């Protein structure tokens, strides 16, 4: 089946101009020829290599790729939690050597501190940076209001739903006013409806806050909805396969899901992530014989 879908690279003039403007902005994060190998001399396993990427100020970057292509490893290196075996990560031109508050991190598993109330969780980073309690308190409250959880400041994390926990985690990371917000499949554990809501919340927050976002996902639609640029990675070893400039204009909405831009982007992503097999046959599991099923099963 072949639908006539336009090439996603034929950007509308408005979108093309937007990317031109983004390229003019200063580079916040520069990943240069990064490589990560696991294991000691004998049997090494290359998680990824040859990864280079410049992220401009206030850009929203999504990294997408099959499981095991090294997405998590890549951003753990950016966050300073792992060390690369080659290449460099520069933040504002300075090499990253360890974790620090200039790179906020939101994990899939929330990682809120269960012994602290919601507000104290948000205050944690502020206190680490030496702010006094009253300042930290009022700033934390502002950030909680920003993510719509002002009413829950005294609750403990276990009293919140998954979506609310992740909003607290976002507020906690943003409260440090990081240069870049790194998110590793932050909404993957949420149900579909909450995930949609969270995606739109995130765009609203990003609109209000001067922050650059590096967002990992394996959900094509999520990447298409959120990103300015999409970095598509392939596995074995992990490599960047393609940089895609998202042709869907902002502000984004569900109504765009049927526009030519969105469909062309989606088609290209599908092509990259789920390439057709070489023989041209459908990639399917063998049929398993069913036994002892009644007549009502066909």
């Amino acid at each position, binding site marked *: 089946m072949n639908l006539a879908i336009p090439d996603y690279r034929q950007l509308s003039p408005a979108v093309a101009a937007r990317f031109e403007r983004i390229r003019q902005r200063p580079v916040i994060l520069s990943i240069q020829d990064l490589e990560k190998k696991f294991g000691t001399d004998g049997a090494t396993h290359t998680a990824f290599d040859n990864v280079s990427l410049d992220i401009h100020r206030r850009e929203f970057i999504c990294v997408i790729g099959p499981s095991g292509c090294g997405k998590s490893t890549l951003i753990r290196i950016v966050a300073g939690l792992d060390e690369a075996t080659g290449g460099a990560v520069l933040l504002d031109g300075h090499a990253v050597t360890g974790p620090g508050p200039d790179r906020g991190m939101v994990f899939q598993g929330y*990682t809120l*501190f269960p*012994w602290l109330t919601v507000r104290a969780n948000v205050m*944690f*980073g502020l206190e680490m940076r030496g702010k006094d309690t009253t300042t930290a308190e009022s700033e934390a409250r502002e950030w909680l209001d920003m993510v719509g959880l002002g009413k829950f400041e*005294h609750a403990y994390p276990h*009293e919140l739903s998954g979506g609310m926990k992740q909003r607290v985690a976002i507020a906690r990371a943003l409260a440090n006013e990081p240069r870049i917000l790194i998110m590793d499949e932050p909404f993957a554990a949420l149900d579909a409806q909450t995930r949609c809501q969270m995606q739109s919340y995130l765009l609203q927050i990003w609109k209000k806050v001067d922050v650059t976002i590096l967002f990992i996902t394996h959900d094509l639609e999520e990447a298409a909805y959120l990103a300015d640029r999409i970095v598509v990675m392939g596995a074995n070893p992990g490599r960047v396969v393609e940089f895609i400039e998202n042709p869907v204009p902002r502000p984004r909405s569900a109504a765009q899901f049927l526009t030519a831009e969105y469909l062309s982007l989606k088609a290209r992503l599908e092509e990259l992530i789920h390439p057709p097999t070489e023989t041209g046959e459908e990639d399917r599991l063998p049929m398993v014989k069913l036994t002892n099923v009644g007549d009502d099963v066909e």
Partner: protein
Amino acid sequence: MAHRDWLGLKMELPRKRRLLLTLLSFLAPVVLWSAVSYVPWLWHPLVRITAQGDVDYFAEDMDVPRADFDRELAKTRAAGTTPPEGHRVNPLYLPAPHEVARAFYTAFTTEPRLPNEPWLHESLGHSIRTIFWGFVLSSLVGVPLGILCGSYRFFSRLQEPFIEFFRYLPAPAFGALCVAILGIDDGPKIAIIFIGTFFQQVLVIGNTVRKVDPALIEAAQTLGASRWRLVRRVIIPASITDIYTDMRILLGWAWTYLIVAEVVGTMSGITYFINQQARYRNFDNVYAAIMMIGIIGFSTDLILAWLGTVLFPWKRKTRTASGRPSLWSRLRPKPIPA
């Protein structure tokens, strides 16, 4: 469905059933004990002589095996002499529940026989003091050391191999040494409790601290925490509830070392009391004293468990989970209506 099932795997039972089962777990042994004590044909292997009859070696209030009594009874009957009289009893070392229950009161009011002998409450007080100091001294060193070992591989590699070795040396083996070094009073007893607790404590707490979710530590690092603050603000609070549970279990172990500790040097505390009462053959008092140790230990643990829910509000079940509002939500100031 879940509520009809008494044997759901790993499923918590409703409150009423939990209480019922708790009651039953105590009731079952008491019922067994009562049966053996009050139903004569279940055991009662002895006969207490109430009248000597014409048997020379019998005396009033003497307990003889049933076979002997029956033999003498048959003999007197055959010879036509006066038969002995008596009723079946259990051995002295198995008093009936009501006797032990009475002893719970009378043991406190029984005046000591010797001039220097302590009263029961003094003995108990002495035992509790010994445990308290042994455990507190051990914890003062053991808890910080355990946290260090759990947090830094350096301390773990430096300390734990030796502690692991020392842990296998039975604490009572040090009794004679402790007396030689610390004298015969309370010093060596506290030292035995210390030795029995400390080495386990460091290892157990070290392990607990090592189990802290590394994701929490990483999250804190990306928020700007490092080194000592990571320990103080993340590792300790993240493991404190489990450390608390460890401490409750360790305190239980300290109690099991008590009896050994108290025979070191001059015998003291509850052990002395039990020994004296056994010597006077007041076995009801012996049972009462042993049970008192259990009651003190058990109720301390209950109090500590309750205290835990006050100290660590984040571990409390939510309102929806337990059906009751949390202390936090009850103490929280009510919102002012607009």
